[in-house]
């Protein structure tokens, strides 16, 4: 699956240029450490997703099941496409879920293996902004493999800048003083209830 992801991810990214491959590979290598850090953080997040169970039934939450079914067990080509779509979404805007929904529909319509049931899970899409980090595992692994194996992944400078931004955003989100962590400490549900 990782190989598929790498191939498709490479194909999707525009602006590929053989001439700057060496520079880009170097830049990618420079980012390798950060990518590994992301992987560790994502593993922790994944553990949290897995433990996201329904307190009444004790069953795993529907979202986790869906994610696992979509991303882990299915070997169809749709999965990397889905991952790419979501990755692009993270890079552009984390919160615009409707835009992401549209993007997903386009991607899935064009894929050979349509995930027809995905349209039913609008709630799933709304939760993705937080859970989406799971998908970065694929990207992180793919990049790591490329760095270690042959440095053939052709990223443009712009792509790497976006990746840097993504890494920084992720790091900022996990630091104790980050706006994201502060938001988690606030009583947001309480404020919503009071409306």
């Amino acid at each position: 699956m990782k190989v598929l992801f790498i191939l498709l991810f490479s194909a999707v990214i525009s602006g590929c240029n053989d001439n700057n491959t060496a520079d880009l590979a170097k830049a990618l290598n420079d980012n390798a450490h950060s990518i590994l850090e992301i992987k560790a953080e994502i593993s922790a997040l994944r553990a949290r997703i897995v433990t996201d169970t329904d307190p009444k039934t004790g069953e795993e939450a529907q979202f986790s099941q869906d994610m696992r079914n979509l991303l882990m067990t299915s070997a169809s080509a749709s999965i990397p496409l889905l991952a790419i779509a979501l990755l692009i979404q993270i890079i552009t805007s984390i919160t615009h879920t409707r835009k992401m929904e549209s993007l997903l529909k386009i991607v899935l319509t064009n894929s050979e293996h349509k995930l027809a049931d995905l349209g039913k899970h609008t709630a799933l899409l709304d939760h993705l902004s937080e859970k989406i980090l799971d998908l970065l595992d694929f990207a992180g692994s793919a990049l790591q493999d490329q760095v270690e194996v042959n440095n053939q992944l052709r990223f443009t400078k712009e792509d790497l800048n976006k990746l840097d931004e993504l890494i920084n955003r992720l790091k900022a989100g996990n630091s104790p003083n980050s706006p994201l962590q502060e938001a988690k400490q606030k009583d947001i549900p309480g404020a919503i209830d009071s409306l």
Partner: protein
Amino acid sequence: MESKNPRAGLNNPVQRGIGKAEAALEWIYPSHFSTTAVIAKHLQIERTNAGNLLGRLVKQGALKRVECDELQGANLFMLTPDGVEEALLLGVPAWEYDTRPSSINHERIRHDIGVQWIASHTIQSLADKGVQVTRMEPDHILRDGSPGKLPDAVLTLEGGHKVSIEFERSEKTGERLDRFLASIADDLANGSYAKTIVASRLPRIVKNYTDRLNSVITLYEKNPVSHRWQAIGTTTVPSELKARISFKHFPELGAVLSPVTWGRKNQKGVAA
């Protein structure tokens, strides 16, 4: 999208002025157009100051005045192409902003201004509790690529929670009301929104909608052949969902929508 001017603590008045101007542009861009009253509400400044601010932006070429027969003659303000560029430079999410005054649907002006005021009020209520709204999306932005039933506006809070807003100018009854309430309950049940605010100027709407929500409502489905709605059963909305629907009566909207009748002298609040 912060309700209070984020640069209010700045000592330099020039910087404060720039901050207000930027906040006004950031508000008008997704809203398409706005009025002095709404901007005054959003920035939490006096109406006179809001008028001066918008007047300056008109002189600078970022905004243009659009006359309209609605709102008892209050001016609308919309962005010029320059203003759109300025707003985009401030980092607002892009949409297909039409700078032509003819792109304003005059049948919806009162509705849209009401929605803006309610959104602004909600943003302030949340800000008072330390929660910031990161994004306000009216229905014309939400409609992109989503053909189904949409709320009048959606507020995205920090942390990703979403609050939907419905503004009711006239009262729905019978089948329409049941379909309306059922769709709100559906959206809440499937997790699309954390809360829905249904607001109106009319206290009767708040009372009747609340009563209806607490009774048995009829479910409807569109017949794929005749395209008519047909009853398919009845249901009661679970109490946990009812708790997430808030019906609000806002008499202050009178000063915004009918400034001459209800504005300056007769009611509290600001005139357009």
